């Protein structure tokens, strides 16, 4: 259970998150909003890359803001990046191992890595260099790296961007199964179909403020959300 309480983030004079308060109990939660709404900033607060001006974020009742950024992975707070960031000169296996090195494991090192790779469906040619992989394989590898061990919160920042239809379908099924690992997923994406297919609940942000939260279908059908996120048709009333 993730709880965000009166979270404010300011960059200089610009307010990026504005008194954001929301509880996120669902397995897969979508976060949508127009560009600059504060979606990635919110993920960066979880990762510790951005220090909020005020407010609190708790995971299972414990505040995470005082944990140094590099220790958050060990506390189960994991993520992928908008532009995928795998280590190109490591092999597939070594990439996942690099994450397994720094988190508590319940099984042996190699077994944990194997499980994470099998979960995303990367199980052949594990000593291939990551630099040779396709975008889709890179995204899968990044997810494997984010789930090895014992993830509690897995944040995916636009994992579906730039993927082909068939790849996107495979990605959806993987994201849908992530809660089986005991993790809560926060999914940022612009693809409304992707969000609708995978997320039970959805949080909508605009100008750093919460303008909607609830069951995905209801939220996406909300006219206020449609106005903010999808824009309105020319001449049509908002």
């Amino acid at each position, binding site marked *: 259970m993730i709880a965000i309480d009166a979270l404010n983030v300011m960059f200089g004079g610009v307010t990026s998150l504005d008194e954001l308060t929301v509880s996120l109990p669902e397995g897969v939660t979508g976060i949508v909003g127009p560009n600059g709404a504060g979606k990635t900033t919110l993920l960066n607060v979880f*990762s*510790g*890359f951005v220090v909020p001006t005020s407010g609190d974020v708790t995971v299972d009742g414990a505040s995470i803001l005082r944990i140094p*950024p*590099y*220790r*958050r*992975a*060990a506390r189960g707070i*994991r*993520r992928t*990046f908008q532009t995928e*960031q*795998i*280590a*190109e*000169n*490591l092999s597939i296996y*070594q990439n996942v*191992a*690099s*994450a397994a*090195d*720094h*988190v508590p494991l319940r099984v042996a090192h190699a077994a944990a890595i194997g499980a994470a790779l099998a979960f995303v469906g990367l199980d052949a040619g594990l*000593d291939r*260099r990551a*630099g*040779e992989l396709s975008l889709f394989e890179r995204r899968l590898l990044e997810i494997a*790296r984010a789930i090895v061990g014992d993830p509690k919160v897995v944040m995916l920042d636009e994992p579906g961007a730039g993927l082909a239809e068939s790849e996107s379908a495979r990605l959806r099924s993987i994201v849908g199964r992530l809660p089986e690992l005991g993790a809560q997923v926060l999914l940022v994406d612009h693809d409304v179909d992707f969000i609708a297919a995978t997320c039970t609940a959805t949080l909508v942000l605009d100008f750093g403020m919460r303008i909607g939260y609830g069951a995905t279908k209801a939220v996406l059908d909300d006219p206020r959300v449609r106005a903010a996120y999808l824009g309105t048709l020319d001449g049509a009333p908002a």
Partner: protein
Amino acid sequence: MPFFISGIATGAIYVLSGVGIVVLYRASGVLNLAQGAVGALGALVAWSLLDASGSVPLAWGTGIATSIVVSVLYGRFIAPKLSHADAVVRAVATLSFGFILLGLMDFVWGERGRRLALPIDGLGLDFFDVRITYARIASFVIASAITIVVMLLLSRTRLGLHMRALADDRRLSGMLGIRVLNVDVWAWAISGALAGISGLLIANIDRLDPQTLTFLVIPTLAAGMVGRLRSLPLTVFGGALIGILEGLATPFAEISAFRTTIPFIVAAIALLWYQRHGIALSRIEREGSTPFAPHVPRTRRRTALIATAACAAFALFFIFLPIVLPSYWLVTATSAAILSIASLSVAMLYSQLGLVSLCQYSLLAVGGWVTLRIGIGTGVPFEISLLCGGVAAAVCGALAGLPGLRMRGLYFAIVTLMIAGAVQIVIGTIGFPGEGLVLPRPEIATSDADFFRYCLVVTVLCFGLVWLHRRAKPGRAWATIRTSESCALAIGVNLTAYKLWAFALGGFLAGIAGALLAANVGELDGRTFPAGQSISLFALSVVGGAFNWFGPLIAGLLLRAVPSFLSDRGVDGNLATAIFGVALLPTLITAPQGIAGQVSGALLALERRFESSPVRTERAPKGTSA
């Protein structure tokens, strides 16, 4: 007061030179470490002409023109070929250009100090009971006037506008229709002119010898750092401050000897201040980045083949080289093996973390000195004092790496270079506290042949140590840090710990190398650890191939065996420096992966041909008949 004023005059020259560096860096993205050498060449040409013709305007004009021509030639024909390389490699390339100039100058004009005399030299005026020569006043006036002209040029003219556009975004400027190469040439010409003028002025008020003038680049760089390599007014401030502080420190005997460390201190304080106040250093990471190793797919057969070849080579070297080689060459081979450890320390930092350390030679000195002291002081076996030397250098390496926690790329390289410069000055001033003492070789390897074998084994152990790191947790953590620091943080890598560990490992290797070098020649000489060597070490590590495991071995050979070969053939040492520079440039240009990268690529191609040989043999007759 007199020192203050003489400081202002020197400061004005630093400013002039610093403005040259910043203008060029902003426009072309090249940090010209040869700036001092270009100025020195101009000054020497002027000196010769003055000697021959006696005409001051002719001599000065030709001198400045020479600097401009040399600078433009490099900027037009060599610099563009390196635009794919990362900022540090581009800077190092200018340095090898500097070596060429320096070697040639020493060869032609000799290393003796000169002074460029002016007719007004004897004259001066009294000011507050202080006699100021006109030469100093003229320096100050000329330097200030030219600085103002250049600043106006940048802010008021179309060329200046284009240069500022290039400073913002080269690719975009090109797309907007700015002739990037033309503007580049202008920038190189301006920087050459400024280098020439400051060289001439320094040669007039101080002294004219190629070494001094070439290392004018250190205070100049420091002034540039104060201006974050962007801001001209701040560069002016930095240069003036350094000049004045140096002047003020002159009368105090205790400080005076160390006054050449002032540029370093000023730059360090400025950088710290920028860091504390969250002011971003210029966007130097934007263009180019450290390359990755070419991928060689690992097959069991290839691994076995390489392992066998490596073992065979080791056995061959271990058993036969000491028998075959004459003693001069055996000592050289020993040094080459040792220097490959030093190169390994540089290559490891560069290939694993993408960081360029230009102070590894200072760490060699630390390792050598501690080993010597402990060895002689306590009489413990060589291996123990060797380890102590390595550990001491590791600690110093981690300390020197502290700036690397916050900065990367060019800035880190410059800061480490300044550390190296400061260490060199301190060693030179206090007298290296090991001179005259003899470091005994290990008991089991007192003869040249045995010591060669000893060093070979240590080299293999060092390579093994790095290999173990790369295969395990630290290597993986370093790779993610190289990908991006946020990526590393997100998967739980403790950035501080792993970076410091890398610096410590690099320091340890350098320390071991320093200790072995000291034991090889028996004594430790402060003069063998100049700052310039650290740069050669990095340059040759890149040329040898920092991304292949045998690259450092090639670098070791290049560093020691090639110079020995040249001097054995009776080639003048200064000319050898120039030849070295000439050889360095094309390799940097044509082989970004270094010689080892080329070799490994060629072997791979050979293997592919070998594997597909049935097809080839069918086709071959046709090819020959056609």
